[in-house]
């Protein structure tokens, strides 16, 4: 019967319409859900900002408490610390209110987050070839963002004498005259020598020792390291540099002896590590 065929066509058309209607309503519901979610987040955010703003406003009101006037200007620093009134110490001391007490040093460090890279990668639609090396992973995929290494690759390159590509650096060299970027090692050594001659600081001597060591002039480095050490026996680096120079000059036994006695005094792990390094000829 043609009628039935016609009816069947109508039925197909009806089915398609039904599916489209369902998808339409489903889509509408999803959009409505998303819209409400976004609206909720915004409202939440506005509330939070409002709360934060009132907090900020409050803190502004309180800043007058931050007295910057010095208590004592002329006295040396050590005396100043002792005579500071507790109320003038802001945010620093746990022992506020205790008169005459030495302010307690508060140290802050950032707490680096642990990121579940696998989870984040799954969320991401952009696949990149770079995969961050996982450090301290208890489970796979978890990485701890390391604290800033402070010296970026470009900066390290500068120290190592390679080309330096930072744009801010190139921008500024022209304007600031006082920065001397181009120094040869001879100039450097001479400069430091002059400085040492004027101020006789152990730091200068140590710098010289290092410069000579870098130039593989181990005799000189040994000499200057010793000088630095005589001026300040607490200068840790001077000990190491002295021992290293000795070792490089072939006097390993002496180097180890010196380091061992230093280690017995101070028990520094770095000293021990150096001893092992010299012993294993990995210097």
């Amino acid at each position, binding site marked *: 019967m043609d009628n039935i065929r016609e009816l069947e066509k109508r039925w197909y058309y009806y089915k398609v319409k039904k599916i489209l209607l369902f998808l339409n309503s489903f889509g509408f519901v999803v959009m409505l859900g998303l819209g409400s979610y976004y609206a909720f987040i915004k409202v939440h955010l506005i509330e939070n900002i409002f709360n934060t703003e009132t907090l900020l406003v409050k803190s502004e009101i309180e800043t007058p408490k931050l007295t910057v006037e010095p208590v004592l200007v002329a006295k040396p620093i050590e005396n100043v610390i002792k005579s500071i009134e507790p109320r003038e110490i802001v945010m620093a001391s746990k022992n506020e209110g205790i008169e005459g007490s030495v302010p307690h040093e508060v140290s802050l460090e950032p707490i680096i987050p642990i990121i579940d890279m696998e989870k984040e990668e799954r969320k991401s639609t952009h696949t990149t070839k770079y995969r961050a090396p996982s450090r301290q992973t208890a489970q796979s995929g978890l990485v701890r963002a390391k604290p*800033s290494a402070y010296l970026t690759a470009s900066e390290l390159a500068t120290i190592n004498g390679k080309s330096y590509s930072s744009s801010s650096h190139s921008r500024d060299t022209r304007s600031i005259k006082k920065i001397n970027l181009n120094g040869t090692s001879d100039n450097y050594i001479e400069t430091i020598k002059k400085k040492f001659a004027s101020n006789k600081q152990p730091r200068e001597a140590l710098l010289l020792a290092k410069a000579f060591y870098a130039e593989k002039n181990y005799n000189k480095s040994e000499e200057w390291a010793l000088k630095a050490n005589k001026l300040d026996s607490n200068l840790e680096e001077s000990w190491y540099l002295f021992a290293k120079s000795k070792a490089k000059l072939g006097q390993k036994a002496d180097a180890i002896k010196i380091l061992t006695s230093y280690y017995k005094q101070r028990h520094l792990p770095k000293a021990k590590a150096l001893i092992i390094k010299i012993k294993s000829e990995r210097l």
Partner: protein
Amino acid sequence: MMKAILFILMTTPFLFSSNLSKLYKLYEKQEYLKACDYAVKYYNKNKNSEKYLTLYGLSCLETDKIYRIATPMIRLGKSESSRANASYFSTILLQKQLLRQALFDGKKIDDLHLPTTNFILSKIFNLFVNKEYVLKDGIYKFEDKDNKEKTYKLYIDNSRKNKKYMMIDIYKDEKFIKRYRYN
């Protein structure tokens, strides 16, 4: 119209792609300026993520636009670690402001004890407050007691019209390695 809806439905999950992993990667590569710009760009989508905010702050901390750390700083606070990070950021920001005041306006900030941080600004602030510097030709020079090879210079840069910048130059073994320019 239906097609459009279906398309939207299919792609909405991907609108929530992970900015956090991208930001982390940039931070790990030490591309701090890129990371900071990226963090700012996708801030709105991720402002409820404490990890995102922390990385945002840490990245922008290493740039000249240190004032940007204020944004994540005010939002961090849902957990103990995020509160600690917020204090860390706000301390550094406060130290920068005070140092700038001291430099530009001669404000006395001697004997001021703020919490210390390992960030360069904090170090310089503490050395400045304790007057452990050598002042010559308007440049404050500091030596790092913990890293003997490092020295720092603090001075004002007036070379631009109507704009003053607080400059911090870092030297390692007398070689210039990094500069911060703060306005």
